[in-house]
């Protein structure tokens, strides 16, 4: 563990509010993504609050075998799943969409028959400058199966390692690769559709 992270943990344990505020803000977007991905928008902030309480209680026993970030994300994922169970909603981390097998973009030999179009805009900022597209990606990411959504949020949103995500989601590396590909491919298709039609 980096020395700076050790110092952060010591300060958190000592009750340093400035450090807490900094770490809370630094990890908020990722924690929010994970909580929202599993438990939904409505209770994401409650899940984060409960997660921090659990984390603070467990921090003296934190063995530092993983990074603080990945340890926190595991706590958020567990809290979110617990909340779902309490509310009798289904945790469907194993669901997989099968549409990839019969993807109409490919012909019978699995080569392109209906490829993506040329896009206008070469940077994420260009793409997201269209408010409608931003909303559309959010909307469609919300419709992804939970395991795909959380996987892509943790990996592409939060930069967690493949091992860390496998640990959090309890999936094998090969399953994770499939989840990531399907989620990314869906976002690509959403952008492509918007580029062609100007609609979500």
């Amino acid at each position, binding site marked *: 563990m980096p020395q700076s992270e050790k110092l952060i943990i010591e300060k958190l344990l000592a*009750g340093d509010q400035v450090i*807490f505020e900094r770490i809370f*803000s630094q990890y908020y977007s990722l924690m929010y993504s994970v909580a929202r991905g599993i438990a939904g928008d409505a209770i994401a902030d409650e899940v984060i609050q409960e997660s921090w309480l659990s984390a603070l209680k467990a921090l003296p026993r934190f063995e530092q075998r993983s990074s603080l970030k990945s340890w926190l994300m595991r706590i958020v994922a567990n809290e979110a799943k617990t909340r779902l169970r309490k509310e009798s909603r289904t945790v469907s981390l194993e669901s997989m969409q099968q549409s990839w097998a019969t993807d109409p973009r490919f012909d019978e030999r699995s080569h392109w028959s209906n490829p993506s179009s040329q896009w206008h805009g070469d940077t994420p900022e260009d793409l997201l400058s269209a408010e409608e597209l931003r909303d559309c990606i959010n909307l469609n990411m919300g419709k992804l199966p939970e395991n795909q959504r959380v996987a892509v949020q943790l990996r592409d949103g939060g930069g967690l390692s493949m091992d860390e995500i496998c640990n959090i989601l309890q999936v094998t590396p090969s399953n994770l690769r499939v989840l990531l590909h399907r989620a990314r491919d869906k976002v690509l298709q959403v952008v492509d559709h918007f580029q062609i039609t100007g609609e979500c």
Partner: protein
Amino acid sequence: MLSLPTCKQVCEQLSENIDETISGPKKFKLKLHLLMCRLCRRYDHQLQLSVKTINLLEKSYHPNHSVKQRALQQYQTFHEDKHGKKS
């Protein structure tokens, strides 16, 4: 005969390559396919752009004032309780 991956397989491998660099014969075949297939090169570029877009989108969540205040309050109370129990 050298059998190259299909476009559909290339799409999957391009995503895989973002997370764990593909090596050996698989990499060679992937590169060769990309060299010959402009549509897969386009997909590669768009996939990378999609990943960056997801990253930017996911970083756009910030705690509002009341959420932050509640968290700080919770942190403070947690430490007061802890020290209260010790003393």
